[in-house]
C-alpha cells in the first residue's frame, strides 16, 4: 500500500536553518531512511544525510524523529499514522554540519581521553586465560554500535553545553565500566570515572537505555555498577577501611 507521507525535515547549517514540509511517497514496509532517500532523489537533491548499512549496525543514520533520538533505518513508517506529520531533525546535542548531519567530534575526543586496556602479564605459556562467566557481563557493552543516540539524549550535555568539558557521557562511562569489570585488566578506573569523566553528573534517569537501538541496559548494567564501585572507593568507610587493612583488595 502506498500513500503520500508528510515529512517535516530540518534544513540548514551552522549559520541557521528551518523546518521544511515535504510530501513524499511512502510504500508499505519502508523505514524513515527509505523515505528520506526518496525525498533526496525526487525533491531535495542537496539534502545531506549520513547513512551506511541501512540495517541498524553501523550507527550512522542517527537523528531525531518526532523529537525522539532514533536510527532512521530502524524506524518504520508504519509506526506513524498516514496523515501524521513526521518531523526529522539532526541530533540536537551536537553541532550541525548540514541538514541531518552533525559533527560528533565530542565523542571521539572523549573516547581518546579514556585510559586504555592494561592487561595483567601473560601466563607462563604466553597465553591470556579467562572464563566466559568473567567476561560475559561486559560483552553486553560490546554490542554498542556508537550511534551516539545515548550521548544525544543525555540531558547532562544536551541541556548544558558547558558540561561537555567535564562529562564523558553514557557511552564512554559504559566503556569505563566494561574495562573496570574486565578480568584481565589491572587499571583501577574508579577515580578517573568520578574525577575526570563526570560519573557523578549522571542522575540515572535512564534515557540512554531507552534510546539504545541495541537494547543495552546502559544504566542498570554499566552506570549504576560503576557508581557502586566508586562508592566502594570514595564514599563507603567500611570498604575503604577494609582495603586499608588489606582485608578487601581491589577485586
Amino acid at each position, binding site marked *: 500500500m502506498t500513500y503520500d507521507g508528510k515529512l517535516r525535515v530540518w534544513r540548514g547549517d551552522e549559520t541557521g536553518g528551518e523546518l521544511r514540509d515535504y510530501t513524499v511517497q511512502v510504500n508499505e514496509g519502508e523505514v524513515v531512511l527509505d523515505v528520506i532517500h526518496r525525498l533526496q532523489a525526487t525533491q531535495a537533491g542537496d539534502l545531506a544525510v549520513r547513512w551506511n548499512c541501512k540495517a541498524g549496525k553501523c550507527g550512522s543514520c542517527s537523528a531525531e524523529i518526532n523529537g525522539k533520538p532514533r536510527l532512521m533505518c530502524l524506524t518504520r513508517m508504519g509506526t506513524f499514522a498516514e496523515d501524521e506529520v513526521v*518531523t526529522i531533525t*539532526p541530533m540536537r546535542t551536537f553541532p550541525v554540519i548540514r541538514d541531518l548531519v552533525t559533527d560528533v567530534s565530542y565523542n571521539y575526543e572523549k573516547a581518546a581521553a579514556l585510559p586504555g586496556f592494561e592487561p595483567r602479564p601473560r601466563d607462563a605459556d604466553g597465553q591470556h586465560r579467562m572464563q566466559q562467566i568473567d567476561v560475559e557481563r561486559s560483552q553486553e557493552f560490546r554490542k554498542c554500535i556508537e550511534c551516539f543516540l545515548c550521548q544525544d539524549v543525555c540531558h547532562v550535555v544536551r*541541556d548544558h553545553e558547558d558540561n561537555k568539558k567535564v562529562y564523558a557521557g553514557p557511552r564512554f562511562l559504559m566503556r569505563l565500566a566494561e574495562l573496570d569489570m574486565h578480568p584481565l585488566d589491572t587499571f583501577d578506573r574508579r577515580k578517573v570515572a568520578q574525577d575526570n569523566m563526570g560519573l557523578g553528573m549522571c542522575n540515572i534517569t535512564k534515557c540512554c537505555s531507552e534510546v539504545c537501538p541495541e537494547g543495552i541496559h546502559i544504566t542498570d548494567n554499566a552506570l549504576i555498577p560503576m557508581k557502586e564501585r566508586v562508592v566502594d572507593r570514595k564514599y563507603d568507610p567500611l570498604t575503604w577501611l577494609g582495603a586499608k587493612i588489606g582485608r578487601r583488595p581491589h577485586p
Partner: protein
Amino acid sequence: MTTITPAPVPHAEGTGAPGRATIAARHLRTDRWWLQPLITVAVLVSFIIYSTIRAFENAHYFAEPYISPFYSPCIVDACEGNSFPKLFDGPSFISPALYILVIPLGFRLTCYYYRKAYYRSFWMSPPACAVAEPHKKYTGETRVPLIGNNVHRYFFYAGLVFNAILTYDAVLAFRNAEGEWGHMGLGTLVFLLNATLLWLYSLSCHSCRHIMGGRLNSFSRHPLRYKGWTLVSKLNGSHMKYAWVSLFGVALTDLYVRLLATNAFSDPRFF
C-alpha cells in the same frame, strides 16, 4: 514545499547553544511524554500525604495480633496487651513512627529507581527523554545534598533489619487476639504479602546486586557469589515494579490495621 520560519532561539544554552540546529521548540515530541511524570507525582504525593497523616496520628496502629508497619517495632509501651517489649522511652508527644520511618524513607529516597522517578517527575531533570529541563545549571550528584545518595547501601543494610522485623510481625500474625498460636486471618495474608514484597524490593536493589557480586571482576573464582549475583540480577530487572508494589503494600497494610483498630472492619478469621 512550505517552510516553517524559525522563531528566535530563546536561550543560548542547551539545545539552543551556538552551532546546534536552530530549533526554537523545547522539544518536538508528539507523544504524551508528560503522562508518566504526572502519574509518578500523583502517586508519590498521595503516599506522602497518607504516610505523613498516619505518622503524626500516633494512634490506631495496633489491633491484636497486628501492628502497623509504620509503627513496627513497637518501641513504646502503647501496644495493647504488652505484646511487644518497650524498647524506647522518648517523649510521648512524638509519634514513634517518626523515628521508625527514617530508615525506610531513606532507603527509598536514595534508591536508584526512585532517584530516576523523582529527578524526572519532581525536579524535571529531565521531565522526559529529549525534553529540555528548565534549569540553567546542572551538577548532578556531585554536590551536597544529592551526593548523599551514595550512602544508599547503608540504608539497604538498615532496611534489611526492618524487613526482618516485619517478617517477625507476619509470623506473630499467626496468633489470635488472645495470643494463641496456630490461627490465621485475612490480616495474616496481608502481612505475609507485605513482608514478601519488601524482601523482593530490598533484594532486587542495585546496591544488593553490587554487594552480592557486582564488585568482583572474576566470577569464576567466587562461584557462590556469582550464583547470588545472577539471582539478584534477575530480581533487579523488576526492581521498579517491586518498588511500586511494595510501596502500595506498606500503605495498604497500615490501612488494614487502622480499619481494624478503629473497628471499621473486623478481620475475617480462617482458623
